[in-house]
């Protein structure tokens, strides 16, 4: 899978390329907005990593042009500006995700994969946490290579939590995900499913933990020793 990295700092750009190649991607590097414009007119990539502070123009304008052409290639924006206005305008211009420097390469790869796994995108493999694996295509949970039988709702909860690895999923999101818009949901329904899922996972020896963040939501993480 070929990625395009548009970053003017040569060192960072080389390091990014190295990291992404290690993660199994092919990488093209560009340093200016003008080059990027020219290349994007003729070539399409699986995803684009775009730095906003380019020497010859604002990276956001490249993004806007791309979206204007109805090109839905996932774009992950890198920026030094963590400022609020920048973040808002980045997402408004059509960025799929946003990372403020300095970022962990590991996280960049994870977020990139999350984008590539989205419906319509190219990556369709599985998600892993410790000895727990979730195959996104078959929607099958696997613990220590043993396929597990989970109810459809438990599966839905697990999928959502694993897709959001490292982030808290709000109770509302879980509710929407498992029940959609279908009528009334008992107020403790989500708790019930999470509780069941938790029990199933621990019974089957998964080394993961589903944390409840009271008042906020849930978070799946590797079990701490």
């Amino acid at each position, binding site marked *: 899978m070929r990625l395009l990295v548009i970053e003017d700092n040569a060192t960072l750009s080389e390091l990014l390329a190295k*990291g992404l190649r290690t993660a199994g991607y092919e990488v093209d590097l560009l340093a200016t907005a003008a080059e990027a414009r020219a290349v994007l007119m003729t070539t399409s990539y699986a995803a684009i990593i775009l730095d906003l*502070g380019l020497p010859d123009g604002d990276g956001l304008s490249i993004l806007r042009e791309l979206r204007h052409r109805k090109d839905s290639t996932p774009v992950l924006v890198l920026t030094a500006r963590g*400022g609020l206005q920048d973040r808002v305008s980045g997402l408004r211009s059509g960025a799929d995700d946003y990372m403020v420097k*300095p970022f*962990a390469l590991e996280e960049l790869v994870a977020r990139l994969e999350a984008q590539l796994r989205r419906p319509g995108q190219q990556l369709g493999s599985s998600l892993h946490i410790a000895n727990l694996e979730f195959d996104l295509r078959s929607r099958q949970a696997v613990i220590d290579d043993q396929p597990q039988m989970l109810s459809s709702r438990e599966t839905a909860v697990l999928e959502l939590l694993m897709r959001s690895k490292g982030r*808290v999923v709000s109770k509302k999101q879980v509710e929407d995900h498992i029940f959609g818009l279908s009528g009334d949901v008992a107020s403790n329904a989500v708790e019930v499913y999470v509780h069941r899922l938790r029990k199933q996972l621990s019974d089957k020896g998964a080394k993961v933990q589903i*944390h409840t963040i009271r*008042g*906020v939501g849930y*978070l799946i993480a590797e079990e701490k020793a």
Partner: protein
Amino acid sequence: MIRFKSIISRIVILHVIAVAVTSVLMSVALSWLLSVATNNIHNEAMGEQAVSLAGHLALKADGSFSLDLPPSLQGLYSQPYGRYSYAVVDDTGKTLFSSLKDKAPVFAADPRVSTVQFLETRIGDAAISGASIRRIIGGKTVWVQAAEDLANRDVLIDDIVEDFYKHVGWITLPILLVLLVIDIAIFRRALLPLRQASETAQQIGPARTDIRLPLDEIPGEVRPLVSAINKALDRLDEGFRLQREFTADAAHELRTPLSILRTRVETLDDPRIAKALHLDIEAMSRVVGQLLDIAELEAFAIDPQETADLQAASAEVAGFVAPLALEQGREIALLGATTPVWIKGNAEMIKRAIRNLAENAIRHAPKNTVVEFVVEENGTVTVQDRGPGITEEERELIFRRFWRRDRNHQGSSGLGLSIVQRIAELHDAKIEVENRVMGGAQFSLHFTPCAAPDTRGT
């Protein structure tokens, strides 16, 4: 020197003084002019009377004069009437004829005086004023004097003078007052553009540095001031812009090398060194981020129209810090309101404040304790921990930049609470620091609650 609060009051007061002075001066001037005019009329009349008397004077054959007055004139000069008098004096000073009792001249005549002379004298209590003319009749020179007792002056003239003051004299005051009212109206009209400019200036604030005062309607006299103000605003605007640019540039220049460093460290072979370096970079990145936050806050202004949902902001921050807290063995809980709590302010800034409070609390909370966020309907968010709490002496110090209880404490830059304080200032929010009964510290931010925003609009 009197200090005036406004141009209008200055105009009114000075105008009133001018009106008072003018009306006094005008009365004096007018009465002087009037008395001059009446005197002239009187003198002219006296001169004419003397001429008419002289017409009746004839030189007899014996060289003496005769004065043959017709009865109408005799009545005019009669003693009982007493108003007019006449005398004829020759060049020796001898009185030839006189209407007075003692045949005395009306005026002590000087033989060498010119043709016509207007004189005044007193006879007893009466003030006498009249004319003396020189006539040469048959080679002999005589002076004919005609005079009027001023006490019995022509009633008509006196009436006119009196009437003048009653009707004409008093009219000057209202005229001047009308003029004052007109002046005020003119000035108010002239100052209208200034008042409009002031209203425009009212809207200028850190959030709206783009507004300039309109020059079109401004009177030429005030234009230099207004354009100077506009230029000052340009410079301020430029200052804000430079500050914002600096923040953006500094962010880029500081964070890009950190990214490089971090990425390099990630590719190191020795995981132990990588981990240690990683922690250092984390700490460094945090300080850089906070310094940039501070720089940004210096030039940041909140749009007074902005509103934020404190509950949502707290939930977002709680969700954001939870993974990190769990990793470090602390739990996060969000308590209190479960529905939107609308407050005035910028959501992103409010989140930053809460985040800094939360990170502070997580750092000080002992393992396996809960850091709680409590959102109240009245626009208050409280972050509480079970840490050591804050001593009385520390309460002021903790908000100082770079202050730390333990200078060797990892991961703390001492900037977090000063950021919280600055954001609170921007929002007119009160910060409350307390120690909890069961131990631990609690920081509350009291924001200004407001109505839910109109979701029908944009």
